[in-house]
């Protein structure tokens, strides 16, 4: 058994009837980092996670954790902790009883159930039935379940869903701590902004395909600023753009110049120096979320620069 907690998804595909939910997807998730697994609803995130966990059989390709398929791992809960849906509890069972279901299979003493409840701040609700839990409490209980076996690899599907702002902040710190201990932490989300303060790496998928995979700083560097300049002097504006070698996007109206990779101050100064009259000069920073939407939108439709709102 390898001690490495690297997740490797290799040319993974899954079809449900005519629907290609996951299409030739490949990426890698490194230990010691928090990786955001991002994509809009229906992008194939959950299906990918389920294939990684041996719940759904891939149509082709492989998904392994530390070099092994999930089904080959002995006592898998000791290696991989996964929380797929916050609703996977019997409502009539208490939180502590729920955790004690799995302690024999994890191979830890029953006292471990109390410990993990303490870790996620649910000790007070240990003997309450899960049916009465809020979504946030269920999320914490799901997280507690994943921690029973002190696993090297954590896979969490939308763990911030239903958490209040304080809970989200707590979760951030908790995930960072787990990664700092050398664990592999994969967190799925349909919005980048939710995880952008938590993750080191991002894997972005859309329509079952890989849209982008890199570290978060590398992703941030791809965010292109945009400036919109409007002038009644069509010829002067065109000459200015040409002279300055700015990238001009198609805007339709010749009086409008949509410019990439240049800031408003530069454009304003150049226009002033050239004596080109401007009626409007606005800069737009699509930010990471805009870039995310752009990347997601670019899958299946390459070449169209989806604009951030």
């Amino acid at each position: 058994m390898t001690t490495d907690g690297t997740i490797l998804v290799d040319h993974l595909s899954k079809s449900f009837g005519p629907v290609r939910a996951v299409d030739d997807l490949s990426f890698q998730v490194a230990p010691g980092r928090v990786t955001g697994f991002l994509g809009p609803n229906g992008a194939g995130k959950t299906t990918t996670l389920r294939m990684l966990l041996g719940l759904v059989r891939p149509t082709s390709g492989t998904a392994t954790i530390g070099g092994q398929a999930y089904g080959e791992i002995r006592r898998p809960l000791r290696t991989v902790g996964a929380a797929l849906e916050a609703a996977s509890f019997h409502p009539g069972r208490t939180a502590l009883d729920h955790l004690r279901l799995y302690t024999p299979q994890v191979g830890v003493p029953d006292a471990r159930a109390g410990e993990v409840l303490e870790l996620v701040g649910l000790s007070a609700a240990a003997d309450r039935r899960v049916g009465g839990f809020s979504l946030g409490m269920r999320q914490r209980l799901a997280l507690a379940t994943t921690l029973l076996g002190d696993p090297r690899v954590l896979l969490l599907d939308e763990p911030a869903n239903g958490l209040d702002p304080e809970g989200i902040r707590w979760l951030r710190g908790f995930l960072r701590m787990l990664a700092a201990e050398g664990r592999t932490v994969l967190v799925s989300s349909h919005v980048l902004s939710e995880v952008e303060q938590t993750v080191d790496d991002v894997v972005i998928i859309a329509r079952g395909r890989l849209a982008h995979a890199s570290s978060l700083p590398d992703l941030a560097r791809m965010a292109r600023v945009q400036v919109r300049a409007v002038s009644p002097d069509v010829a002067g504006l065109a000459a200015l753009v040409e002279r300055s070698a700015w990238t001009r996007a198609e805007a339709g109206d010749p009086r409008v110049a949509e410019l990439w990779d240049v800031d408003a101050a530069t454009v304003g100064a150049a226009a002033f120096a050239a004596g080109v009259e401007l009626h409007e000069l606005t800069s737009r920073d699509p930010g990471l979320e805009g870039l995310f939407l752009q990347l997601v939108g670019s899958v299946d439709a390459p070449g169209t620069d989806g604009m951030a709102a």
Partner: protein
Amino acid sequence: MRAALVTEYRKLVTTRLWWILLLCMAVYMAFLAAAVGWGVSQGNAMGSSPGSDEQLALAPDAVVRTVYTIAVTFGYVFPLLVGALAVASEFRHQTITPTLLAEPRRTVLVSAKVISAGVLGLVFGLVGTLAAVGAGAAVLTLLDQPTFLDEASTWRSIALSVLALALWAVVGVGFGSVLTNQVAVIVVVLAFTQFVEPVLRFVLALTSWGADVAAYLPGAAGEAVAGGSFFSESGVSSLLEWWQGALVLLAYGVGLAAIGRVTTFRRDIT
């Protein structure tokens, strides 16, 4: 496998379903045993009067066997439901996902469910049978009828009744593995046990060939294990040997579980 067994056992006993069903079974069986004990012994006392139906021909030891094993005839729906819901509720509450994460070997999982349900079935068998024996013997004593509790053959019937009910829990797991919709499970179990099989046995008994077929129906097989029943003693159907009945019932349980293993438990869990 041992860990999976402990886990499955804990799943069964950490919700309220099992003891609610167990309580219902105990009360229902005690009531039925008392009622039938009173009814058939009264019929027996008037055995010589003309115009009597076939029940009046019951020998006293057949009377007590009918009363003490009434749980096998009318109470098997309880262990059957417990077994079936052990699987169906996993799908109803989507706990099948964490279940398979903890034990990805699906054959091990199904086997653990079969065995753990069988063990809980023994508890149901014990409680249901003893409720019938207790209430039945009390009524018979009050009516100055022999209880036959000092005879080994009576206790053999009682023990086999417990076994039959335990096997019904196994059949339940098999059934729940094939039909995972919890509501459908409850409807089909109630319809089949309370209506379809009794009617089927009655109708088959009217034909020349039907009796042999009817003996292999699960309910009849269960009664065969206990060595007698309300139906058979009243001449509605004939039964197999006790060990044949046990094997037939076990075959239903394991067979259905095997079908569930290659259908339900082969599918993608989404």
